[in-house]
């Protein structure tokens, strides 16, 4: 287990200006350890979408990224409102994002579908009023 690198990030709520910093940092760290550009792109896209969702929908949270020789595992945990209907939320185009978020270019309802598309494995644990934990794996 010694060759697993773990990174953690606190994501602050409602701060769009900082959204993307965690994903960018992971991206440059993956570059340093020699992960392929294709895998880096997948991780960057999936993590940014998850990060943005934590900012918009969930009052921030915590992201843990585990890098091993076999895979990159991203665990995004928030204490937001939870997702009432995961199947519906996963549909491309479904969004509850408010208008001001939309005017920034977000809220297209493509986040969760992108996260699924760009990872090899994605699971969502969510409980109303408690929070959501999304785990995504990109295989190397």
């Amino acid at each position, binding site marked *: 287990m010694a060759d697993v690198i773990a990174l953690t990030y606190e994501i602050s709520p409602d701060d769009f200006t900082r959204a993307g910093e965690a994903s*960018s940092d992971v991206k440059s760290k993956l570059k340093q350890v020699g992960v392929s550009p294709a895998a880096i792109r997948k991780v960057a896209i999936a993590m940014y979408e998850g990060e943005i969702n934590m900012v918009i929908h969930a009052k921030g949270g915590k992201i843990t990224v585990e890098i091993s020789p076999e895979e990159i595992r991203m665990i995004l945990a928030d204490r937001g409102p939870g997702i009432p209907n995961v199947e519906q939320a996963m549909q491309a185009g479904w969004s509850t994002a408010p208008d001001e978020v939309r005017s920034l*270019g977000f809220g297209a309802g493509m986040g969760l579908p992108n996260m699924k598309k*760009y990872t090899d494995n994605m699971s969502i644990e969510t409980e109303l009023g408690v929070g959501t934990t999304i785990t995504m794996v990109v295989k190397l």
Partner: protein
Amino acid sequence: MTVEELIGKGIFQVVVEGDDLSREITGIFCCDLLSVAMGRAPSMSAWVTVMGNVNTIAVATLADVACVILAENAQPDDMCRARAQQQGVTLLATEEPVFEAALKVHQLIHG
């Protein structure tokens, strides 16, 4: 065509010169929805959008596009400009609408 060569044509206003001007531009991508651009903009593309906020730069970096072109005279806000500088993203601007801006790049690439 490289980013430097595109800048050299003088058809776009240069807001920020990025770190890697030798990057090749092989295509164009047009969209304002960040999640769509994020998932679909090819790396090495010139991304044409009217969205001039700091998140545009985050998406440009993560999707690894060659440069961003703000069309329709969209003004990047200060934070967008600062982030582009910090991340080394080339940010260009034009008064042209999205289609015309993209068409110009297309014609330059394909002769």
